[in-house]
């Protein structure tokens, strides 16, 4: 009895230290989320102005740019998968990967072959473990993405997209799967088609007195578009990375909160069992003593 009591105490102790760790991770994630949200907000003006400019060019010139051109017979599609570098974030990465599988099935159903581009160590591990090929992987920045990384990823995807059909590594479509940050409570894995670009003319329809003005382009509309569209693509990727980072932290906070709660529950249960065991030990000792005393008394009575 006494041995198992010691065992229970040891288990309570280890659960307690685990609880401390998960609690600390929860707090860290909570404080980082705020920073991640700030970063996402700080990046919003750039995306907004860029969208405005792109729709201005699109409205006042005939858009025919390689990046907006639909391939007549798309054969290959690239999928950029954005997951986290580290685990302990609940189902965050696996739900992104599930979404990827769904998208992959759909695209394969349309008769397209797939090239995978991965961001985040979790996605890389998933593909390596299954021995599935991927073109390129970027890791080490999932919770604090920088614009440079987004530019790097964007450059690789644009390069692949711009290759002629039939050329090595050419893709005709680019899709991105990331987790959209809805709120602290809900984050949903989302798949969007990044390329060819669909130029939307203004996110919200401009009111009649705020029509887009007639622009002068310098050096020329085509060249301005040439300069704008790659940046537009990169800013979209950057936006996806920032959303994914905020989602990752929110998912981690939620997972760690659940873990802390579970540890608390477990400690309570173990404490009860340990107390029971202690009580049982004491009861047994008393009954042994009483039994012994009785036996002595009986022996003495027999002798008398």
């Amino acid at each position: 009895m006494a041995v198992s009591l010691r065992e229970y105490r040891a288990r309570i102790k280890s659960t307690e230290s685990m609880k401390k760790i998960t609690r600390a991770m929860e707090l860290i994630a909570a404080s980082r989320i705020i920073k991640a949200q700030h970063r996402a907000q700080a990046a919003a003006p750039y995306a907004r102005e860029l969208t405005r400019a792109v729709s201005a060019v699109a409205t006042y010139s005939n858009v025919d740019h390689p990046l907006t051109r639909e391939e007549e017979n798309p054969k290959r599609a690239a999928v950029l998968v954005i997951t986290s570098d580290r685990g302990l974030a609940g189902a965050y990465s696996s739900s992104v990967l599930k979404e990827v599988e769904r998208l992959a099935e759909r695209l394969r159903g349309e008769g397209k072959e797939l090239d995978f581009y991965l961001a985040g160590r979790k996605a890389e591990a998933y593909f390596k473990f299954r021995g599935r090929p991927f073109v390129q992987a970027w890791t080490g920045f999932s919770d604090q993405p920088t614009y440079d990384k987004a530019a790097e990823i964007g450059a690789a995807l644009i390069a692949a997209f711009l290759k002629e059909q039939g050329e090595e590594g050419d893709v005709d479509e680019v899709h991105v799967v990331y987790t959209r940050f809805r709120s602290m409570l809900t984050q949903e894995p989302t798949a969007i088609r990044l390329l060819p670009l669909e130029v939307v003319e203004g996110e919200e329809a401009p009111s009649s007195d705020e029509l887009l003005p007639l622009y002068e382009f310098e050096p020329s509309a085509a060249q301005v578009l040439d300069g704008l569209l790659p940046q537009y693509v990169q800013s979209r990727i950057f936006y996806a990375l920032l959303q994914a980072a905020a989602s990752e932290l929110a998912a981690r906070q939620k997972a760690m909160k659940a873990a802390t709660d579970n540890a608390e529950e477990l400690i309570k249960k173990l404490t009860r069992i340990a107390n029971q065991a202690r009580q049982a030990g004491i009861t047994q000792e008393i009954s042994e003593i009483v039994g012994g005393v009785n036996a002595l008394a009986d022996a003495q009575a027999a002798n008398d």
Partner: protein
Amino acid sequence: MAESTVEHLHVELVAADRTVWSGEAAMIIARTLEGDIGVLRGHAPTLSLLSASVVEIQVANSNQLVVVAVDGGFLSVANDRVSILAERVELAEDIEVSQARIDLEEAKRLLDSSNEAEQRVRHAEARIRAAEKVS
């Protein structure tokens, strides 16, 4: 064009990850791919690509001059509203001249071997010019 009631230009100077400066300005001088451009109130709507260069903003109602180095990007003017976007925007006060000089040397050495180096040389030169302008 609608009569504008704004006295000055409203400027948004935006980098990829933050807004660097925003406010009212009297004049803006920037360099596009075709040459220098000055923007005053009432400028025709324009969208132009910038080269890696120095952008100067004359702040309204003061002698203050905001000087930044950009690595390209573009400038759009419409309805007395100017937005300057670039992936990297640095205020002249934040530029370390010594670091910029090192970058310049390095970029110059690479000039023959890579296409990117020319862009880097221009950017480094712009940073040095911007820093010298405020010092």
